[in-house]
C-alpha cells in the first residue's frame, strides 16, 4: 500500500495503537505481521521470495559466528550470491538478455534465450542491500548475529522502510527491536510532524510537478527550448520531494513508535560540490556503496588513476542499482565523471578562486557553487528521467533552442493549460511551492523548524499544523502515482 493512500491512513494508526497496547514481548510479532500485510498489499506471492532470502541470511549469519576459517567466506558467498542472484533474475536478467540479443543479431548468431515475463518485486533493491549489509557486518565481526528469526525477519521487513529505504545498518536498527519503547507525546508528535512534512513534499509538490514533467518527458520530441528546461527543472524537485518525502514519512512513522531510522536526505540542493551532493542525497545508499564497494576497491588510499577508477565503477554500479536501463548507467557514470573532473581540477579551481578574488566574497562564491552544482545534477537528471538514450540526447540537443524567443516562454504556459488538473494555477503554484521549499531548506540550515515552531509560536503552532494538513487535503494530487523509488 502507498503512504499517500486511504488504506495507509487506516493501517498506520491501528498498527501504532496495537504497538503501544501490546506487551513488549509480543510487539515484534505484531510489527512483523503488519509488515507482511503491508508488503502483500502489492503482490502477495512475492512474500515467498522475501522469506527465502530472510531464511538463508538468518542461518548464514549464525553460521558465520560459529565457524572459523575459509568456510566463513563460503557462507558469505552463498548469502551474497542468493541475494544478488534474486536481484539479478528479477531486475537485470531481461536487460542483459536484450542487450545480448542485440549483439547476437548484429553478428547473426543464434541466441535462443527469451526474456522472462516477471514483475519486479517492490523494494527488492532496498531490502537486498539491507540484508547484504547485515551479512557483511556479521562477517566482519562488527555485528552479532541475530538469534531470533522473527526479529531478524522484522529487520528486513520493517514496514516504514521496507519498500524504499532508508537502507538501514544492523547496528542501528536491529538493536532497537530489542528495546522497550514507551509512548511519549512529544516524540509521537514529532514523528507525526515529520510525516506531515513528507506528505506535503510528496502529494503537494512532487505529484503536482509530475503532471507537467510527464507531459513533456512522455513525448519530448514535440517540444524544444523552455518546455524542456522547465520539465527538467521541475523533475529535479519532483524526484527530491518524492523520495525525501517518502523518507520523511518512513522516518516519522518509525519515530512515532520509538524507532530511529537514519537521515536519508540533508538539503542536497544546497551542496557546493558533487561530492557534497552525494553526502547529502540518498545518504543510506551512498554510504552503502562507499562502505561495501568503494572502500573495498581501495577507496582513495591508492594512486589517483586507481581512485578515479574506483569512483567511476562505484557510481556506475549505483546507476545500475537504480534501474536496468542504459540511461541509469549513464546517469551514474556521469556523476562519477563529475567527481573525477572535480578532483582533477581542484588545483586549477583554487587558483581561479584566488585570481578572481571570489574567496573574499564567500557568500557569492557559495551561491555560485550551489547554482553550478545544481545545474550539473539537473543535467544528469535528464538521463535519469528520459525513457531511453535517444530521448535524452534529443532533450540535450534541443533544450536551449530558441530560449531567447518570447514564444518559447509562452509555449510553457500553453503546455500547462493543456494539462488537466494542472492549468495556469498549476504552473504558478509549482514555482511558488519550489520557492517555499527552498526557503524552508535555507531556514533548516540553522534550526530544526519543527522545534522552532513549537518554541517560538506556542500559541499558533496548531494553526500552522492545520495549515499543513489542509494544504495536503486541498492542494494534494491524489492520483494513483507511486513513489518514484518504488520501481527500484
Amino acid at each position: 500500500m502507498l503512504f499517500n493512500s486511504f488504506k495507509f491512513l487506516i493501517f498506520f494508526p491501528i498498527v501504532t495503537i496495537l504497538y503501544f497496547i501490546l506487551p513488549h514481548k509480543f510487539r515484534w510479532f505484531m510489527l512483523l505481521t503488519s509488515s507482511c500485510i503491508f508488503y502483500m498489499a502489492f503482490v502477495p506471492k512475492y512474500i515467498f521470495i522475501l522469506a527465502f532470502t530472510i531464511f538463508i541470511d538468518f542461518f548464514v549469519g549464525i553460521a558465520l559466528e560459529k565457524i572459523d576459517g575459509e568456510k566463513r567466506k563460503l557462507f558469505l558467498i552463498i548469502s551474497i550470491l542468493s541475494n544478488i542472484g534474486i536481484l539479478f533474475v528479477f531486475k537485470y536478467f531481461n536487460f542483459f538478455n536484450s542487450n545480448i540479443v542485440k549483439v547476437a543479431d548484429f553478428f547473426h548468431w543464434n541466441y535462443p534465450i527469451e526474456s522472462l515475463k516477471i514483475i519486479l518485486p517492490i523494494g527488492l533493491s532496498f531490502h537486498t542491500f539491507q540484508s547484504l549489509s547485515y551479512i557483511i557486518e556479521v562477517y566482519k565481526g562488527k555485528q552479532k548475529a541475530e538469534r531470533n528469526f522473527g526479529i531478524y525477519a522484522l529487520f528486513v521487513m520493517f514496514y516504514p522502510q521496507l519498500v524504499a529505504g532508508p537502507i538501514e545498518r544492523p547496528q542501528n536498527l536491529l538493536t532497537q527491536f530489542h528495546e522497550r519503547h514507551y509512548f511519549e507525546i512529544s516524540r509521537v508528535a514529532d514523528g507525526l510532524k515529520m510525516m506531515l512534512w513528507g506528505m506535503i513534499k510528496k502529494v503537494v509538490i512532487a505529484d503536482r510537478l509530475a503532471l507537467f514533467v510527464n507531459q513533456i518527458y512522455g513525448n519530448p520530441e514535440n517540444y524544444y527550448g523552455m518546455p524542456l528546461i522547465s520539465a527538467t527543472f521541475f523533475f529535479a524537485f519532483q524526484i527530491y520531494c518524492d523520495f525525501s518525502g517518502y523518507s520523511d514519512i518512513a522516518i516519522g512513522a518509525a519515530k512515532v513508535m520509538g524507532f530511529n531510522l537514519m537521515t536519508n536526505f540533508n538539503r542536497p540542493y544546497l551542496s557546493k560540490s558533487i561530492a557534497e551532493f552525494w553526502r547529502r542525497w540518498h545518504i543510506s545508499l551512498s554510504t552503502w556503496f562507499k562502505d561495501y564497494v568503494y572502500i573495498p576497491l581501495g577507496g582513495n588510499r591508492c594512486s589517483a588513476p586507481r581512485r578515479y577508477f574506483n569512483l567511476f565503477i562505484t557510481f556506475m554500479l549505483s546507476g545500475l542499482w537504480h534501474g536496468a536501463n542504459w540511461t541509469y548507467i549513464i546517469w551514474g557514470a556521469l556523476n562519477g565523471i563529475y567527481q573525477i573532473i572535480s578532483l582533477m581540477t581542484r588545483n586549477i579551481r583554487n587558483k581561479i578562486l584566488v585570481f578572481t578574488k571570489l574567496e573574499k566574497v564567500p557568500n557569492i562564491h557559495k551561491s555560485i557553487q550551489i547554482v553550478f552544482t545544481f545545474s550539473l545534477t539537473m543535467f544528469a537528471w535528464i538521463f535519469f528521467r528520459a525513457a531511453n538514450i535517444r530521448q535524452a540526447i534529443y532533450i540535450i540537443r534541443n533544450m536551449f533552442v530558441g530560449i531567447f524567443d518570447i514564444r518559447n516562454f509562452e509555449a510553457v504556459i500553453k503546455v500547462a493549460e493543456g494539462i488537466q488538473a494542472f492549468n495556469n494555477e498549476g504552473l504558478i503554484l509549482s514555482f511558488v511551492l519550489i520557492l517555499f521549499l527552498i526557503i524552508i531548506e535555507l531556514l533548516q540550515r540553522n534550526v530544526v523548524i519543527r522545534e522552532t515552531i513549537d518554541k517560538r509560536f506556542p500559541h499558533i503552532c496548531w494553526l500552522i499544523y492545520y495549515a499543513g494538513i489542509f494544504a495536503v487535503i486541498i492542494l494534494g494530487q491524489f492520483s494513483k502515482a507511486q513513489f518514484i523509488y518504488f520501481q527500484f
Partner: protein
Amino acid sequence: MNKEMQLNNLLKRGLLLKHKNFLLCITFVFFFFAFDFVIGEVLSYYDHFDTPNMNSLMWDDFYKSEPNSIDVIFLGSSHARFAFDTETFDNNLNIKSFNLSSSEQTPLVGYYALKEVLKNQKPKLLVYEAYWRVFGIDDNTTTAYFVYDYIKGFDTRSQLLASIYDNRNFSSFLAEALSRTYKYRDSFFPTIKNVLTGRIIKPSSPSKHIKYADFTYHQNGYFQSDEVVNNEKLFENNPFEKAGLYFKWNETQIEYFKKTIKLCNDNNIKVLVITAPLPKPSMDYIKDYKKYSSKIMNIAKKFGLEYIDYNSMNIKEGNFKNEFFFDSNHLNKNGSEFLDNLLIPVIKKYLN
C-alpha cells in the same frame, strides 16, 4: 509519610499528564473536523458559483415537493433524464411525476435513491429505465456521487456508503464523505478568484429552465436538449464503436434491480420496465443486443412485470429517427416528445 506523599503526587502528575495528553489529542482532532467543516462549507458555497449543480437542482426540487404528492417516479440513467418530460405526463395525465434519473445510474444507486424517495412519498408507479450497460458497471462510486451528495437521509447515505465498500474507488469516495474540504477542494482556486474579484454573494438563479452547455434543466428532474446530432458524433466518433465490443453482467447490479422491484412490491408500487431508444447507428455496434434485452425481459417476467424495449422497437421499425437524438445516446426535445406520447397511454393504464 513524606515519601508516600511524594509518590502519590508523582502518580497524580503522571495521571494528569496522561489525561492532559489525551485531552490535547481529542481537542486537536475536534478542531480539525471543525475547520474541515467550515472550510468545506465555504468551498461548497463557491462550488458551481454561476450555474447550480444539476443533480443538486434535481434533489432540491424533489425535497420541495409536498409529502405524498408524487404519483409517478422515473429512475434510470441519463437516457431517462432526457427521455421523460415530467411536465408532459403531468399535464396529460393530471398527475405529479418526478424524474430522479442521473448519469450512469446503476441499479444499486437507483435502489437507494428510491429508498430515499419512499421516506415521504408514496408513488403509485415506478417507471424503471433499464439501460443494459449500467448493469455491467463494477464500480458504482462515480455514479453514487450523484445521489449520495444530495440526499438528506443520513441512514440512506450510510447504507449507500456501506453497499459500495468493496468498489475500486471506495477509499476516494469515503475520503470525500468524511471530509467536506476534500470533497470541494477543486473549488479552492475558483473561490480565491471569486473572493478577489469581489464576487462574494452567489447570484440567485431561477429554479426552472436553467441553461447548461448543450441542454436545459426544465423542472422535476427533466433535462432537455434542442440540438440535433451530427454525422460526426453518430458515425465518425461514436463511443459505442469501442464500448459496444465487450459487456459483462455484474451480478450485484442484477441483485439490486431485483431488490428495487421487491421494494416496490412491499410498498404497493407498480413497476413498468422500459428501455429508452438509442439511435440506430449506435445500435449497429452492439452485436449481442438481443441477449441483453432478453435477460432484462426474463427478470421482469419473473416478477410479472411488463417490459417495453423501445430500443428493439427502433431497430425493427426505425420509428426513432436520428433527428430525435442530440448525440449518440440521448433523445432531444422532439425525441422525448415522441417517446412520451407513446408512453402516456401505457402509464394511464397503470394509474387506472
